[in-house]
């Protein structure tokens, strides 16, 4: 039962590991080796790098980032809602589903006001 179900997965894993090992060893063996200082730089999309990435950030960035993610994710709910809205309207439940979204957005706005009142968006 196990072999039957997970056999293809095992083959896939073995293939992935084998492929990676083969590429690493093969390119090392036959590729030309020319030294160039740029080759050992950090990849920065064309801009030459200027600092270590493991520096210190102000903790306020994290707060802003967390709040951003929260509201971003909650806004994602609006898209599926708008897609199925017309189907609900055909069933005669247009007002119901509109009210649902109004409640949802109302709670979201309350949370936003709460954040402002608490001073989470103040920078100093």
């Amino acid at each position: 039962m196990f072999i039957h179900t997970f056999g293809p997965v095992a083959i896939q894993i073995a293939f992935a590991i084998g492929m990676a090992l083969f590429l690493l060893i093969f390119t090392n063996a036959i590729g030309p080796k020319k030294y160039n200082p740029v080759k050992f730089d950090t990849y920065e999309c064309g801009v030459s790098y200027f600092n270590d990435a493991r520096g210190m950030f102000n903790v306020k960035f994290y707060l802003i980032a967390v709040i951003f993610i929260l509201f971003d994710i909650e806004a994602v709910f609006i898209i599926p809602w708008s897609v199925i809205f017309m189907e609900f309207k055909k069933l005669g439940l247009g007002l119901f589903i509109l009210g649902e979204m109004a409640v949802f957005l109302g709670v979201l706005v309350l949370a936003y006001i709460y954040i402002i009142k608490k001073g989470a968006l103040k920078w100093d």
Partner: protein
Amino acid sequence: MNFSSYYAQLKYLAPELSLVVFSIVALCVHMFSKKEANKIVKFAAITGLIASLIILFDTPLSNNPLYSGSIIIDGFSFFFKIIFLLSGIMTIMLCYRFYNFEGSEIGEIYYLILFAIVGMMFTVSSVDLITFYVSFETFAIISYLLAGAFKKDLRSAEAGVKYFILGILSSAIMLLGMAFVYGLTGETNFYKISSALPQADLTLALVSMAFFFVGLFFKIALVPFHMWTPDVYEGTPTPIVVLFSTAPKAATFAVLARLIMTVFSGYQFQWSIIFTFIAVVTMFWGNLAALIQNNVKRMMAFSSIAHAGYIMIGFAAWGTLSITAIMFYLIVYLFMNTAAFALIILVQKKMGFGENVDDLKGLARRYPMVAGCIIVVLLSLTGMPPTAGFIGKYYIFTAAVEKGFYLLAVAGALNSVISLFYYFRIGKAMFMETGTEELSDKNISFVKSVIVACSIFILYAGIFPSKLTEFISSIAIK
């Protein structure tokens, strides 16, 4: 799917919806007014809980799942909702004194408690994996916040972080178990899973069950997953511990009961072995570790672990008798534990001070009535007649004996003897030793009334248990 019944089914959710409305009102009051508004917030929160309790008794019950089979409002969930609301009411009453000496009152905790209780109410009603997980996480995440409510206090912050990290780890494992269940059956509804799961591979079904139980056992604090309990209880503001040690545990026990009645009903032999083992280890570990504690809060944390072990005996010997026994024990445990933590709030001077057994010395001279009531509570926690704790343990052990779990009943009785030693260290300190004579401040009327009410209930349910058991069996077993 029949969408037109959506409006009609709203009436079944009236207690939950009213609680949500009240908590949003409390949030708005807290948000739009000055610092002194905490009294109004507290008042709104306690009014919401009482209103929800009244509405709950008027709400019709239905044995058919509502909302596309995701929620069921049956007698079983009705009983547990009473426990949560009572626990919330007593928690907020105890906050009156606690924040009086603590000074820095945080208005947020009141509506967070309300939101957590809404989450628990949906948890016990849910019969669908997704509804269950969302409502379970609602109260779980709020309890991480509540544990760290005093973010300036180091121990409270430590409790919050510890609870958060261990809690999300265990709930991730539970989610993996849920994913296994879904992968094996392709269903999220508990009833549909229970008919589809026996056709699945036995090993994988048992693995999914084990993963599922890890998350639940963590919340109940059963022994291999109990490490967080003493530290979190010690650091968390004491009124919040009253909530932590009763309501989420009751909610998780209810979920466990629902799961073994539906999803894993075909694996009684296997989970019965797991529960037997866990019950014995939990009882012994909780009681033996409580013996060496000097901090009353830590002692009560281990005591709550041990009580969860007693309740697990009922789960191991599952049957109609043990359902009644478990529900009886849980409501009695609610009152016993609330009274014990109320005693800690009474003697506490500040977070982290005045929590030791020595601080209870001479309490009988300072507050004779409270000390008398606490003796009743201690007798009940130990399990001695004529208190409700005795009746609860009697029912549980009877259920075990009826199913042939003689050794389990013996282990439970043995543990009651062990627990006598540490519970009566509290009694000895209160009555037989002399300590400070000075009375603390005057704002203890709520604490006193909670302790007195709890002990009256314990005595009443201990002397006339038939009324309560009739009520339980009339709503729980249909």
